[in-house]
């Protein structure tokens, strides 16, 4: 695949050839091709599986260029910038890069810079930049908002974007694309290099990372969208060996824990050298870890790793793993990305993978050697998951992957970027508009939207123009814009970044005086709503009793409880990918295909066929039946919990209007059930499921929903309307002042419903939180293809979803009912 006849001796200097030979390696074709691309000055996207020497391929051109540079007396600027989605990965790559640099004796300084980097080192890096800087998108945004950014980056020749497939389709990706555009202006000779795992559609990533501009608008020649990026492919690697655990005769009807299969999983771990056990949520991780230790008569070193654990504890696990002291680690997506752990030979996926691409990534964690196949075992937690795991296994075997659709850059992120530009140096609006549109996600940005964003940054962008004298950026006599004063600049720098995480509380062991002692880890605030003081729960691999919650700490004490209360959880936080959903529907309809399934699951499908219907891949099954004193309607769109929940909310409104008296609903990844007072057999289903529900019904429901408030809060923080942190502004109790965004949302919605931030929040809620696009596609797909099966009792398919009734928590809107209940309690007490 390398360019015609380009061989190692042509491309590699002797020092590098000797180094490869000395290690008994030969440079791989894609590594040489990357060197060739650099020689030609081309931007490149390298797509290679994990373990393909991808990182070295990215850095090789830089190392060669730097090694060939004549010794100079003048201090030099930054040559290569490496961006990783994870702090830990940047540090890991720094270590790995150190080896070739040291072994070849190259005069190159490579350093990482993350939020954890010490102040002294950061200051030194600013005055005396290393040759190679390894950092994260957030740190880059901060560097771009420096006053000296232009000088700092002027010598930059190359930017390497690692694990780009995890970054592009998000707000972090928007921010990074904007900073890339800025870097290109500061350093026109800059080359862009992307490193990605195998993806379904490389064009999407090429378009994201390319500079989109007209030759006249930008100082750099040959820029023309995705076509300006050359694609380099690594070797495909050996086919992974994927099995599905059949658990013959014991596949549960519902649930997400895979408890039934733990003994089998334990046996598999015993036979493997080192196994990674992936789960989808932190709760699942805790549960699986507990279950495995109950079975662990051999005392195998099995550890736990997820994002809620204290950093120190995570690092301990990582270090033990690197030393080869562990036999298994139960982990969440925290270990999805390419940090190298050595000798993992088996990946176990507990509960369904939800998407083929994510699974390929996870499988890639086993055997970081290309010539040996990776081994993976899927462990379905219920019957529908059995179908899903089989479909995923076949998709992986056919190398059919699902991908993220391209996204349109968010305006709240753009607002943050515009502020960053103004903080760094004065900008001209027209020039910045062209610069911004050279970033892939913003290439179609309209002038009106850009103007609105600049106005928002300056005055808040309100129709009521009372804030003109409080402008955060001001127009200078020469027509350029710059930040109003140092304080505003300083506060912007404190709040840079596009990740808005839910409020986290520290879990601490309570002391006798009711104060927080040792920190065990962190939990999301929301998790606590399910627990009351005195309840026991599993966290960090132990059972704890909840003592209480202070403002920032969750106080716990160790409990000896054998049967901890498990907070209910909704299975996976990942939605089933559209592609995998389609394959599941195909598998279900194709009776010949059922032979890959265990007997009990086949019998279940057979019973469904006899008692109700099994419909074709492009149809949707709708069942109605009475049960108890209620009437049920169950549909099976297989579009994921998020889409189903949105559908259920909207259908409930319609059913209300039709006088059916809907009482409740429940959703999982495969199905949705609604129950009502009146029978629903004779409704006009084509009408009920018509696409116009996405109009007024959606608008009305959304504006009241807690999801909009959540989306608004994130947009308010990212755009800089609300500051998470500002200097010296702490209350007497030591708590940071926080302003309730719900109050702002309510006021803004009533007085200026079309404000930029409300538009942002609506767009976010419609994609991330309720997934309107996917629901729309689904409604189109099933138009004229709803198969109604009227039944006198429940069907085999409906059992799993009906079993989930009662496990659900009512969403945040139930506030009034909660107050009423609490009041009844008082009345009871008062009248006792």
């Amino acid at each position, binding site marked *: 695949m390398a360019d015609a006849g380009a061989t190692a001796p042509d491309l590699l200097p002797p020092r590098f050839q000797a180094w490869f030979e000395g290690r008994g390696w030969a440079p791989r074709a894609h590594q040489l091709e990357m060197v060739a691309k650099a020689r030609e000055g081309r931007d490149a996207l390298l797509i290679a599986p994990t373990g393909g020497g991808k990182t070295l391929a990215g850095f090789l051109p830089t190392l060669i260029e730097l090694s060939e540079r004549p010794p100079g007396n003048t201090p030099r600027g930054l040559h290569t910038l490496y961006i990783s989605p994870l702090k830990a990965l940047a540090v890991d790559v720094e270590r790995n890069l150190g080896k070739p640099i040291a072994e070849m004796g190259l005069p190159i300084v490579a350093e990482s810079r993350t939020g954890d980097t010490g102040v002294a080192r950061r200051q030194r890096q600013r005055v005396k930049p290393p040759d190679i800087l390894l950092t994260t998108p957030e740190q880059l945004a901060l560097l771009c908002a420096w006053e000296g950014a232009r000088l700092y980056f002027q010598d930059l020749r190359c930017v390497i974007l690692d694990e780009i497939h995890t970054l592009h389709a998000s707000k972090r990706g928007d921010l990074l694309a904007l900073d890339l555009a800025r870097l290109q202006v500061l350093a026109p000779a800059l080359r862009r290099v992307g490193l990605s795992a195998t993806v379904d559609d490389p064009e999407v990533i090429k378009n994201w990372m390319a500079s989109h501009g007209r030759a006249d608008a930008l100082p750099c020649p040959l820029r023309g969208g995705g076509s300006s990026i050359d694609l380099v492919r690594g070797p495909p690697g050996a086919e992974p060996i994927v099995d599905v655990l059949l658990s013959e005769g014991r596949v549960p009807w519902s649930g997400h824990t895979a408890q039934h299969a733990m003994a089998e999983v334990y046996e598999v771990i015993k036979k493997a050298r080192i196994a990674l056990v992936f789960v989808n949520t932190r709760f699942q991780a805790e549960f699986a870890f507990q279950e495995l230790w109950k079975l662990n008569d051999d005392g195998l070193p099995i550890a736990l790793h997820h994002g809620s654990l204290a950093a120190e504890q995570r690092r301990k696990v990582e270090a033990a793993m690197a030393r080869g002291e562990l036999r298994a680690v139960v982990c969440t997506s925290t270990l999805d990305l390419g940090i190298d752990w050595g000798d993992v030979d088996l990946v176990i996926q507990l509960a369904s993978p939800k998407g083929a691409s994510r699974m390929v990534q996870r499988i890639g964690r086993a055997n970081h050697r290309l010539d040996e196949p990776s081994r993976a075992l899927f462990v379905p937690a219920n019957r529908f998951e059995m179908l899903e795991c089989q479909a995923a296994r076949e998709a992986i075997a056919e190398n059919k992957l699902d991908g993220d659709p391209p996204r349109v850059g968010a305006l709240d992120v753009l607002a943050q970027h515009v502020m960053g530009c103004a903080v760094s140096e004065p900008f001209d609006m027209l020039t910045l508009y062209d610069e911004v549109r050279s970033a892939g996600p913003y290439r179609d940005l309209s002038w009106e939207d850009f103007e609105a964003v600049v106005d928002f940054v300056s*005055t*808040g962008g*309100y129709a*009521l123009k*009372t*804030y003109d004298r*409080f402008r*955060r950026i001001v127009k200078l006599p020469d027509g350029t814009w710059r930040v*109003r004063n140092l*304080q*505003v600049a300083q*506060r912007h720098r404190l709040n840079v970044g596009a990740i808005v995480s839910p409020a986290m509380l520290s879990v601490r062991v309570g002391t006798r005086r009711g104060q927080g002692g040792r920190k065990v880890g962190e939990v999301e605030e929301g998790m606590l*709503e399910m627990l*009351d003081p005195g309840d026991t729960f599993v966290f960090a691999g132990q059972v704890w009793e909840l003592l*209480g*919650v*202070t*403002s920032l700490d969750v106080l716990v004490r160790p409990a000896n409880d054998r049967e901890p209360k498990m907070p209910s959880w909704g299975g996976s936080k990942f939605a089933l990918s559209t592609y995998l959903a389609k394959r599941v529907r195909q598998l279900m309809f194709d009776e010949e295909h059922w032979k890959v399934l265990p007997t009990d699951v086949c019998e279940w499908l057979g019973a469904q066929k006899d008692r109700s219907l099994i419909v074709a891949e492009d149809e949707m099954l709708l069942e109605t039946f009475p049960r108890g004193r209620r009437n049920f309607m169950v549909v099976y769109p297989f579009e994921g919990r998020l889409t189903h929940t949105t559908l259920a909310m909207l259908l409930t409104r319609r059913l209300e209007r039709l006088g059916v008296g809907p009482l409740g609903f429940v959703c999982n990844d495969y199905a949705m059930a609604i129950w009502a007072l009146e029978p629903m057999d004779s409704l006009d289903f084509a009408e009920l499921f018509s696409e116009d529900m996405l109009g007024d019904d959606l608008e009305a429901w959304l504006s009241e929903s807690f999801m909009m408030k959540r989306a608004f809060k994130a947009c308010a923080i990212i755009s800089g*309307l*609300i*500051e998470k942190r500002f200097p010296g502004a702490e209350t007497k109790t030591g708590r940071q002042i926080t*302003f*309730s965004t719900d*109050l*702002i949302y*309510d*006021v*803004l919605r*009533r*007085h*200026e419903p079309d*404000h930029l931030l409300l538009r942002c929040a609506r767009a976010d809620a419609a994609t991330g939180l309720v997934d309107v696009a996917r629901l729309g596609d689904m409604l189109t797909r099933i138009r004229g293809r709803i198969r109604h099966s009227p039944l006198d009792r429940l069907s085999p398919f409906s059992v799993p979803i009906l079993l989930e009734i009662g496990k659900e*928590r*009512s969403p*945040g809107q*139930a*506030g*009034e*009912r*909660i*107050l*009423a*209940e*609490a*009041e009844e*309690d*008082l*009345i009871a*007490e*008062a009248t*006792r």
Partner: protein
Amino acid sequence: MNAPAPSPFNYAFAASACGGLATRVARADVVMRCSGALWIEGAQALVVADLHLEKGSSYARRGQLLPPYDTRETLGRLEAEIAATKPAVVVLLGDTFHDRKSEARLAPDDAERLRGLATGRRLVWVIGNHDADGPQTLPGEAVDEIVLGGLTLRHEPRAGAQPGEVAGHLHPAARVVAPRGTVRRRCFVTDGERTVLPAFGAYAGGLNVLDAAFAGLFVRPPLAGALGAARVRAIGWRRLAGD
């Protein structure tokens, strides 16, 4: 509060027609209204606390450009309450403005609406800590405290037993725990002897009633009148949780 007294409530409460909660404070009949305003029957007085007008522009001054609509939103609510109750007296119970320069920042139409409040009725500005200068150009009487219908109205609650005191300042909010879940709402707090009003302003935050600032104000475990969508809910002390 460590040991809630088991004794039955020695004060009565009932839902009133407006969705509010009718009760007595030191033998004076009052209604805790859904808006967060207090109606004093004996004086035909409407009392609102902690409007914090121009809080938005106060933040904007320092670079945080919150929507500039808080003053008109708050005034809209107050005008609706006045239209509904037709009071003889309107009492602004302190911290009516967010800072000492707020009055000068008022939009002209908002200032006009504020002047309108004093037309055809008595308008009383109780002085608070945020607006210690009182109104500069706006009509109405400025006082440190005032006695109306047998109740003493002042901004900041005094320590120790204060039978008949109506105060604001603390922005009480209740976090209510029920089997179904948890909600946090602004609330009145009363033990039948005195009461603290919720903040009325659109941008005014809330302080949990379990905070130490409330300790020692009440002679018995008080009742929280939590502001619901259309009703004030009487919530017992043991249903409340910290933040």
